[in-house]
């Protein structure tokens, strides 16, 4: 279900630009509060499990939210978005292992690699529509996965990138310290989400919604649909790549599973679980899926059945994500109060 369908019957889209500046201040404020809360979490609890959970949420959350920029905002159903998650993890790990540069340099280098790869792949993919776009992205994902498996001398093949990724200290930040790693991941998550929010609320973001709802009309009013789609494809890839880098930092390695299609499948599932109508839906979905995975695997070996039934509940029962559901419920109540 796209955002458009969920919004049918809802109030008209508020696109006035006068409130844009105050909205931006509000977003920055929320981001600061969120970061403060996350950063003070280690003071309240010493549970390594909980902190690890937040780090994993950062990695998957950035990935899932960036996928929502494509699926929810632009209507590009990518089945291969996970390739950039894997690319980020492998790119970062390889740059660190092979060159020994400092972590920020490796980050920028990995982003540049992702930029180039995503531009090439995107230029081919966004020409196609709907199911064909989905298939060709899936094919590229599997192509990258096969390349990782077969290029053993560089990537370690099916064993993954082992031997640990060095974490030299920079600017007083020592990422081999668990607490530093935690704060660093939270910062990346909050900054990433804030940037994506700015993209989504910018005029460009509304252009994307227009392309999703009616590409032909967008084209008639003079929008270069191809270029807009390619731009968001590359931008989303960059954020997914950051997610992959957090993951590589966290596990101190990179594994072929990071580039396997199941990562893309999980990303789509997260989006459905949380809902694509709201910006934070995918983030809620990430937390839900990770909790679900952790608890279900602890209680039963048949976690496929449990997960499957949960998916069925959302797909056939609710027919929308959790945040979509909450948002509609809230909107209905508000309308009723207004009479």
């Amino acid at each position, binding site marked *: 279900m796209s955002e458009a369908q969920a919004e049918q019957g809802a109030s008209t889209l508020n696109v006035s630009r006068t409130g844009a500046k105050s909205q931006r201040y509000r977003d920055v404020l929320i981001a600061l509060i969120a970061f403060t809360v996350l950063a003070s979490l280690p003071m309240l609890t010493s549970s390594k499990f909980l902190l690890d959970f937040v780090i994993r949420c950062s990695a998957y959350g950035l990935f899932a939210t960036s996928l929502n920029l494509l699926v929810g905002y632009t209507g590009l159903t990518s089945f291969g978005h996970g390739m950039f998650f894997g690319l980020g993890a492998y790119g970062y790990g390889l740059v660190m292992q092979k060159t020994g540069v400092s972590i920020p340099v490796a980050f920028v280098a990995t982003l540049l690699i992702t930029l180039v790869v995503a531009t090439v792949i995107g230029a081919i993919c966004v020409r196609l529509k709907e199911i064909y776009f989905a298939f*060709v992205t899936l094919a590229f994902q599997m*192509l990258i996965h096969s390349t990782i498996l077969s290029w053993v001398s560089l990537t370690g093949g099916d064993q993954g990138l082992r031997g640990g990724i060095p974490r030299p200290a920079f600017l007083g930040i020592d990422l081999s310290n668990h607490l530093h790693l935690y704060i660093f991941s939270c910062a990346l998550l909050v900054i990433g989400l804030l940037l994506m929010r700015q993209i989504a609320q910018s005029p460009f973001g509304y252009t994307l919604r227009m392309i999703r709802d009616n590409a032909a009309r967008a084209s008639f009013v003079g929008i270069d649909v191809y270029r807009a789609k390619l731009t968001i494809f590359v931008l989303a890839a960059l954020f997914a790549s950051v997610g992959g880098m957090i993951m590589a930092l966290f596990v101190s390695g990179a594994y072929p599973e990071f580039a396997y299609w199941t990562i893309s499948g999980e990303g789509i599932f997260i989006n459905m679980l949380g809902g694509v109508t709201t910006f934070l839906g995918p983030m809620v979905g990430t937390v839900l899926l990770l909790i679900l995975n952790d608890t279900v695997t602890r209680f039963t070996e048949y976690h*496929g059945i449990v997960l499957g039934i949960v998916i*069925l509940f959302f797909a*056939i029962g609710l027919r929308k994500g959790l945040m979509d559901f909450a948002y509609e419920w809230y909107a209905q109540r508000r309308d009723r109060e207004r009479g």
Partner: protein
Amino acid sequence: MDLDALTGCLASSACLVTQTTSGLIIGMLLFLVAVGLTLIFGVLKVVNFSHGAFYMFGAYFAMTAYQLTGSFALAMFCGAAGTAVIGLIFERVFMSRVYGADVLMQLLVCYAFVLIFDDVVRMIWGPEFKSMGMPAAFQVMPLFIAGGVVPPYYLLLIGVALAAALILGLGLARTRIGKVIRAAAHNPGMVSALGINTGLIYGGVFALGGMLAGLAGALAAPVRSLTPGMGFSVLIESFIVTVIGGMGSILGALIGALLIGLIRSFGSLGFPLFTEGLMYLFMVIVLVSRPSGLFGKEVA
């Protein structure tokens, strides 16, 4: 990369025959799965991501039937008929609820069932690798064609798949039911207005697609090992086949399956680690040059 092995094989007739037959049986099994997929997409406009599970069920049903009765023919029948029933129930109870919904919804329902079906198989038959074993009737001397070894069972497999292709093609083109199915694919509203039960047709087509995948699984059971999740790689490959051949085209599925089968069998000689990569590369090339596939009608 091992190009010497590839050129060496192409130069010897024995190797050529062996590799071609192995490519053909991969292709024929893929065709049976892919043609069901393409049929379901053509008529129901649904991409059945759980199609691999039907292949898996077919294989497990055939194995159990063979172990119980010892009859190979009965094993084939159980594999095909059992999956047809599952397909019918699956379509009527679950898939029919998400027609017209977003592709993502359909995908999720199928994804849920991939997870559920895999676990069901794990519960019933256990997680370990199983093997059905070659039926006694086919434990005979292999044939030698131009120096290459061809097990007789391979010939049966290719024959059955070709027969299925022929029956399906002719059935759709020439019979009344085929005509109704094609009409339902074209304009279900009109077909329904003419007093034909489209729900029945949808269920039937889904059952037919499931049956073909089940037949493929049953045919593959003697030559492949059985494991929960075995349907997945077949599913991905048959997707590649349908995309290359063109969604909804039976001829396309046949040609696509044979191409992928040959790429796999010869690719494994020249590029042992990159065989899968070759398939995806081929898919990318086809999609970019002809988005609707080699035999697809609509241009995306």
